[in-house]
C-alpha cells in the first residue's frame, strides 16, 4: 500500500473509471452505492488489501495503481457470491477479471505473481493442446512460479497419482488448427 | 346507331373473356347494340385494324388481364387512345390479379425456374426466349418480359373498374347496360360491385371474434352456418369488396379477395394483417407465433390478387 498523507488530484487517474466502465460487463460500476454487500459476502474479504466495495471506491476516485497492485483481485476465487447479491447487479467478478487482465498486461500483478503465472500457463496449455493437462500444468506452474514449493505439492500429487487420477499424457484435440485459426482471428480483431 | 366496342386480353387466364360469354343469351342483346371491332379471343381482327381507327373511335373497351410485357402495355396504350371509355375488367386489370404474385420474384429467377430448374424441364441446350433472334435467317421479335407486373391503371388512365376473378356475368351485363343507357358513375368508380365488404353479403352467422388457431380448408369441414374466419379459416371476406354474391363462401370456401379492397383501403393484404392480428387470442409472443405458424405463406395469402396494387407492389431488388 502506498502511504500518503494527502492525496493530490494530480496523481489520480480519472480515466480509470471510464476505462473499466466501457468494458463489457463493466457498465454498472458507476451505480455502486457502497453498501458493502460484496465485501460482507466475500469469502476472502478478510485477507484482501481492499475488500471489493473499497475497490469500487478506489476505481471511482482514480486510484489506479492501488487497485491494480492490490492483492484483492488475485484473491477472487470466482465464486460469484458478490455478483449474485449485488443490489445494483454489478458484475463484480467480471470486473475483477478485467482488473486481472489489465494488471497482467501492464506488469502490475506483483501481488498476484503466482496467480498470473498459473493463468498464463493454463492459457498456453489450452492453446497448445486445446485442453488442459493438469499434470503438465502444475509441473510447469510450480517450476515457473516457485520451484522450491514443489515439495509442498508432492503429497497431493502422489495422492492423485496413486489413486489413478493423474494422467501422464496430454490429450490434444484433433482439430487444433481450427482452434488456432479462431484465436489468431481474435488476435487480429483485438480485445474489446 | 350501334356502339363500337372492343375486348382485349392482356396477361390473364382468359376467364374474363369466358365470363363475358357466360352472360349467355344476353350476348345477343349486346350484339344488337354493340359492334365488336376488336376481340382477339373471339373475332379475327388485327392490331393494325385498330391502329387504323380514329382516336376515340371506340365507345367502350374492356381490358382484362394485367400488364406483364411490352405487348400488353403497347396495346393498352393503343386502346386508350382509340376509346372513349376504358374499363379494367377483372381482378388482373384492376389490382394485378394472380399474375402479379410474380412480383415477389425477379424476371431472372422466373426464367431460371421455368426454363431450367423445374423438375420436368428438358432443355439441355439451355434455350431461353430472347427478345430478338434469328430463326431460319429471319429476325424474330418477342415482346419484352417485364420484371414487374402492373395493373392497367399503372400504365394508362382507366375510366372504370369491374372487379372479380372473374367478374360475375350479371355484373358485366349491368355495367354494359349502364354504358348503353349513359348512366355511368363518376370516372374512376368501381362498377359492378358493392361499397361494403363481402361480410355484408355473406349469409353466415357472425359473432365477436377471437381466433386461437388457424386452420386450412383441407383439414376441416367448416360449420355451414358460422363465419369462416371465426372457425379459424383465413377468409379475406372482411377486406374484400362485395358484389360476387358470396359464391365461394356459399360453397364453404373462404374468400380469397378477388374483388379487391374497399375505397380508401390502401392495401388489402396489409389491412387483413391488421384485422386478423387484432382478433387473435394469445398475448404472449410464443403463443402468438404458434398461432401464426398456422398461416401458410401469409404474404401471398393476403395479397393473392392484389400484389400489383399494393403499396410496395413487389419484392425489393
Amino acid at each position, binding site marked *: 500500500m502506498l502511504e500518503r498523507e494527502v492525496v493530490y488530484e494530480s496523481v489520480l487517474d480519472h480515466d480509470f473509471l471510464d476505462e473499466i466502465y466501457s468494458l*463489457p460487463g463493466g457498465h454498472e460500476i458507476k451505480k455502486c452505492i457502497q453498501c458493502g454487500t460484496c465485501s460482507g459476502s466475500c*469469502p*476472502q474479504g478478510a*485477507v484482501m488489501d481492499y475488500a471489493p466495495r473499497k475497490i469500487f471506491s478506489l476505481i471511482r476516485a482514480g486510484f489506479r495503481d492501488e487497485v491494480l497492485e492490490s492483492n484483492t483481485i*488475485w*484473491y477472487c*476465487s*470466482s*465464486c*460469484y*457470491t458478490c*455478483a*449474485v*447479491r*449485488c443490489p445494483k*447487479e*454489478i*458484475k463484480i*467478478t467480471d470486473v475483477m*477479471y478485467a482488473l*486481472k*487482465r489489465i494488471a497482467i498486461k501492464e506488469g502490475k500483478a506483483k501481488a498476484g505473481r*503466482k*496467480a*498470473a503465472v*498459473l*493463468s*498464463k500457463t*493454463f*492459457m498456453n496449455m*489450452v492453446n497448445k493442446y*486445446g*485442453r*488442459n*493437462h*493438469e*499434470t503438465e500444468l*502444475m509441473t510447469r*506452474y510450480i517450476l515457473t512460479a516457485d520451484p522450491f514449493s514443489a515439495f509442498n505439492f508432492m*503429497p*497431493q500429487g502422489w*495422492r*492423485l497419482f496413486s*489413486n*489413478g*487420477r*493423474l*494422467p501422464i499424457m496430454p490429450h490434444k*484435440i484433433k482439430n487444433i488448427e*481450427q*482452434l488456432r*485459426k*479462431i*484465436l489468431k*482471428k*481474435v*488476435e487480429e*480483431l483485438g*480485445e*474489446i | 346507331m350501334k356502339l363500337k366496342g372492343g375486348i382485349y386480353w392482356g396477361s390473364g387466364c382468359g376467364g374474363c373473356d369466358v365470363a363475358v360469354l357466360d352472360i349467355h343469351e344476353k350476348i345477343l342483346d349486346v350484339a344488337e347494340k354493340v359492334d365488336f371491332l376488336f376481340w382477339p379471343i373471339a373475332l379475327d381482327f388485327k392490331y393494325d385494324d385498330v391502329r387504323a381507327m380514329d382516336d376515340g373511335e371506340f365507345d367502350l373497351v374492356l381490358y382484362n388481364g394485367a400488364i406483364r410485357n411490352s405487348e400488353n402495355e403497347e396495346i393498352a396504350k393503343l386502346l386508350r387512345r382509340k376509346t372513349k371509355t376504358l374499363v379494367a375488367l377483372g381482378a388482373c386489370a384492376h389490382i394485378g390479379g394472380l399474375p402479379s404474385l410474380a412480383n415477389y420474384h425477379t424476371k431472372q429467377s422466373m426464367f431460371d425456374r421455368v426454363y431450367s430448374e423445374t423438375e420436368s424441364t428438358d432443355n439441355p441446350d439451355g434455350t431461353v426466349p430472347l427478345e430478338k433472334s434469328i430463326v431460319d435467317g429471319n429476325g424474330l421479335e418477342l415482346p419484352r418480359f417485364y420484371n414487374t407486373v402492373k395493373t392497367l391503371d399503372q400504365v394508362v388512365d382507366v375510366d372504370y373498374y369491374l372487379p372479380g376473378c372473374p367478374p360475375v356475368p350479371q355484373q358485366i351485363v349491368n355495367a354494359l347496360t349502364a354504358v348503353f343507357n349513359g348512366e355511368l358513375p363518376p370516372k374512376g368508380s368501381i362498377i359492378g360491385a358493392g361499397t361494403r365488404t363481402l361480410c355484408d353479403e355473406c349469409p353466415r352467422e357472425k359473432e365477436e371474434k377471437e381466433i386461437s388457431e388457424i386452420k386450412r380448408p383441407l383439414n376441416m369441414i367448416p360449420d355451414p352456418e358460422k363465419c369462416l374466419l371465426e372457425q379459424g379459416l383465413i377468409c379475406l371476406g372482411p377486406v374484400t369488396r362485395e358484389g360476387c354474391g358470396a359464391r365461394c363462401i356459399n360453397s364453404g370456401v373462404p374468400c380469397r379477395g378477388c374483388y379487391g379492397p374497399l375505397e380508401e383501403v390502401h392495401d388489402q393484404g396489409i389491412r387483413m394483417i391488421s384485422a386478423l392480428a387484432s382478433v387473435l387470442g394469445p398475448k404472449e409472443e410464443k403463443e402468438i407465433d404458434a398461432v401464426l405458424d398456422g398461416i401458410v405463406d401469409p404474404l401471398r395469402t393476403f395479397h393473392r390478387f392484389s400484389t400489383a396494387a399494393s403499396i410496395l407492389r413487389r419484392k425489393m431488388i
Partner: protein
Amino acid sequence: MKYTYYPGCSVKATANLYQESIDSVMPSFGVELEELEDWNCCGATAYMSVKELMSFAISARNLAMAEKFHRDVVTPCSACYLVLNKTNHYFNDYPDMRKKLGIALEAGGLSYSGNIRVRHLLDVMVNDVGFEKISEAATSKLEGLNIAPYYGCQIVRPFYYGCGACSDSEDAFDDPDDPICMDRLIEATGATSVKYSMKTKCCGSSLMGTEEKQALKLCRGLLADAENNGAHCIVTICPLCQMNLDIYQPKVNSLFGTKFNIPVIYFTQLIGLAMGKKPEELGLNKLAVKMTEPMKQILQGA
C-alpha cells in the same frame, strides 16, 4: 433423453472417477450422453484472467460445434457449466462481442447463433429424470447415511446477475443462496440430507494453487460444518470442489490440527450406491479419503 455431452478437462483426468460413475449410472435412467466430438477446454477461470475475448472464443467453439445437434448441452462440471453459460450470455448481450466472436468462429469455419442451452448434469437428473425415478431406482435404500449436500458456488450462479430471485434467469434451476434440489435427491436415494448451511460456500477453487492457506481455511469451514452436523460424507457435483476437499483433506488436518475423515463423493456415485452398484464400478476406490467404516456398514446393511 439424448443430450450433447461436454465432460470438461477435469472429468477426463483428475475427476475420472466422476466419469466412471456417470457411465455406470446414467444409462439406467435413459439419459443418453453423446460426447461432443473434439471439444476443447472451456477456458475455466484462468484463461479469462489473461484474455477475455479469446477465452470466450474458445468456449464458443464448443457451442458452435454443439449447435448443429439442436440438443441441450450437458456438463457435469460446475466451472464448465458457468463458463459456457456466461459465454452464451455475453454473446447474446453484447452486440460488439457477438460480432467479433462471429468473425473469429468464421475463421475456423464455424458459426453460432447463440441458441444452445447449457445445463448441468444435476439439473438434468432432478428436472428431466426426476426424483421419482431416482427413488424407484434406489433399490438399496441408504437409510442411516447422513450426507451433507455440497453444491459449491458456480452451479447456483450460472448467470449470476438477475438470478437473485431466480425466476428471471432461465439458466438458474435453484436458489443461489439456499438450493434444495440435491437435498431432495439425497432423500430420494433413501439417505438423510443433513442441515448444511455451508452448502454454497466457496471451496477456494484455484486459490489452492496460489494462495493455499486461504483455500485450506475455506475447506476447513466446509468440513467442520459437515462434521458438526453429523454427516458421514459430503456429496458434491464439481470436480474442483471434490479435489480440494478430498485430496487436500489431510493437509487441512495437518495445518489446523483437525481430524477430519470425511469422504467426498460425487452425486452420481451416491446414486450408484443407492442402486446397489459396487464401489469400484463407481470409481469410489479412487477417493483419497476412503470410505469410512460406519459408511461401509450402512452400505452393507443396505
